[in-house]
């Protein structure tokens, strides 16, 4: 393997200018199509944050009234990821909706098996958007792949009248409105927009923590112009997402040379060809991070990335690879900083790589916390309570 030197920041000031953008702003066409009666555009509810995207355009991020488009991988296998997003909303007293009238975007399967087609994928997306619209809440997409895929779907619907016609016909038959949100918003953009407020409520010092960030491919490579960038972070030469959040929490974010590489998830590979996913995650990501930055934690913002980077380390350890770095999402890190329970909220027992030394470094008595969680589980086992409630989580 060739190790490239990490580029140092220069004194050059990079300023984004939307008028120089190599792509046109899709929003003009989205609203034009609404004027022509093609669809309804669901507006971002006020109040909202304004953030800059890659070419300096402004993107609106809603504060609340959010409809949480959950992620199947997060909810199924690392549920503390989604729980932390909800917990953050609750801590700030924000109004949100956790729907049951929601399907997966089905894009994981599409990218894995191709057993679908653009018409079906667009119909699934619009069905979910219609469901959000009917509640009056605005979609906040938890999964990076859903986020990227929905941007692709929106792009296709804008540019392909025939596809729009087919999807409209399906929505009519389902008795649902044809709705497109004004913005496609990923939850990590909301966390980024909230980062200063989160930092104001921080109770756990993280200034001695070193983290490496893995930006999710489907966040910043699919319709790349719609990802958040900041002149303050890497001179706006790479996405500011996650890094900006961690820096607000005082975490030392260290760079590494393979930051652009994917995690190795591969969609099909993580399920039926995991030798590839393991090899890539360990050799191109975790080992490089260890060697160049030696982080206490790897932080990312997508389902597959947390899964692949975390789960792949077990088998690699048996082969003497340089592994052993816990992996979590930005939502979990933000919640932890604000004092969330590592097991009742972050649900770290669903993660694989040993995260106890990391918790100890933060001054968290993980044994005591685990005993507290176990006591709650015991009550559930004995039938003394049906479920762990939000009140229990903060007790």
């Amino acid at each position, binding site marked *: 393997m060739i190790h490239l030197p990490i580029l140092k920041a220069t004194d050059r000031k990079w300023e984004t200018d939307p008028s120089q953008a190599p792509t046109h702003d899709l929003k003009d066409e989205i609203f034009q199509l609404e004027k022509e009666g093609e669809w309804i555009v669901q507006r971002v509810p006020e109040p909202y944050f304004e953030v800059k995207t890659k070419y300096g355009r402004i993107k609106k991020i809603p504060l609340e009234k959010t409809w949480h488009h959950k992620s199947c991988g997060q*909810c199924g296998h690392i549920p503390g990821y989604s729980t932390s997003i*909800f917990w953050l909303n609750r801590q700030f007293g924000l109004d949100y909706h956790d729907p049951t009238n929601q*399907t997966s975007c089905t894009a994981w399967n599409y990218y894995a098996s*191709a057993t679908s087609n653009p018409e079906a994928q667009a119909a699934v997306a619009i069905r979910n958007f219609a469901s959000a619209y009917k509640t009056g809440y605005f979609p906040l997409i938890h999964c990076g792949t859903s986020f990227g895929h929905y941007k692709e779907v929106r792009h296709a619907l804008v540019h392909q009248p025939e596809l729009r016609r087919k999807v409209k016909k399906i929505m009519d038959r389902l008795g649902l409105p044809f709705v497109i949100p004004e913005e496609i918003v990923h939850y990590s953009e909301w966390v980024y927009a909230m980062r200063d407020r989160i930092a104001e409520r921080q109770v756990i010092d993280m200034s001695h923590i070193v983290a490496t960030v893995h930006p999710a491919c489907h966040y910043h490579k699919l319709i790349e112009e719609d990802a958040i960038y900041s002149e303050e972070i890497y001179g706006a030469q790479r996405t500011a997402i996650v890094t900006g959040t961690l820096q607000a929490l005082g975490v030392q974010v260290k760079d590494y040379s393979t930051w652009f590489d994917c995690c190795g998830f591969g969609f099909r590979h993580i399920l039926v060809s995991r030798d590839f996913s393991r090899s890539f995650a360990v050799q191109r990501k975790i080992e490089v991070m260890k060697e160049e930055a030696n982080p206490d934690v790897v932080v990312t913002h997508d389902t597959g990335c947390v899964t692949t980077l975390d789960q792949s380390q077990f088998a690699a350890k048996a082969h003497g690879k340089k592994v052993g770095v816990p992996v979590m999402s930005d939502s979990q890190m933000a919640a932890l900083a604000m004092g969330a329970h590592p097991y009742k909220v972050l649900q770290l027992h669903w993660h694989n790589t040993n995260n106890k030394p990391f918790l100890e470094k933060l001054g968290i008595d993980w044994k005591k916390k685990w005993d507290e969680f176990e006591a709650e589980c015991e009550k559930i086992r004995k039938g003394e309570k049906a479920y762990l409630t939000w009140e229990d989580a903060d007790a």
Partner: protein
Amino acid sequence: MEFALDLSANKYADVPYEEKERLFNEMKSDERWPHVLYGCYECGICVASCPSARFYDFSPRIIAQAAAREDVDLLYTLMNDSVWDCSQCFSCDRCPRGNSPGQIITVMREVAVRNGLQSAKEALEGYGRIIYKIMSTGTQVSPDMLQPNAFPDWGGHVNEISEHLEVWRKALPPETLHTTETGWKVDEKTLIELYLIWHMTGVMDMIEQIDEGLYMILVDVMEERLEDAGYDVTFD
């Protein structure tokens, strides 16, 4: 250095050119094709950023070039022996020519599935349970998939999760996550709408081509639910 991928036309010499051309025309007629393929500078940026190229005998550049040259024989070989190695991360979207080799591959895979190519069936072997899960329940992976025999390389922690699954799911504060067979609680009406989408968009026809057994199981599940909801829908 010996390569695993045979790019000569020898392997598929017995497949009539007309058949290869028919499949290529299917790719080319896809509405996305002109938006994801503009030519190729042969710069190799796509290969440099490609994760699959590091561990497989796989090259997004070769695929983009073959597509740009309309090399029907080579595209047939690649559609059978290469496209399933792609990670679909779209790192290759940084192509200076504006190509998306990943999207070209998406189209090629769809053509392979729609036509029931044996190579596609083999690539998706063992994957049927995932298709079943997403198409029938609306969520792709479920907590009860975390079984040690499914993820032996993830270690004893999977065993622990599966052992405590029922209780640990109840120990999740969000009410929608108390499920074990789906990622979250999905409404019955939502599933009906999803089934109708599969029905109206020809996705079930694709499943029938790739896995007849899976198709029959899905038809049973969907038709029963649709019938109970008052829909007279058959997938025949």
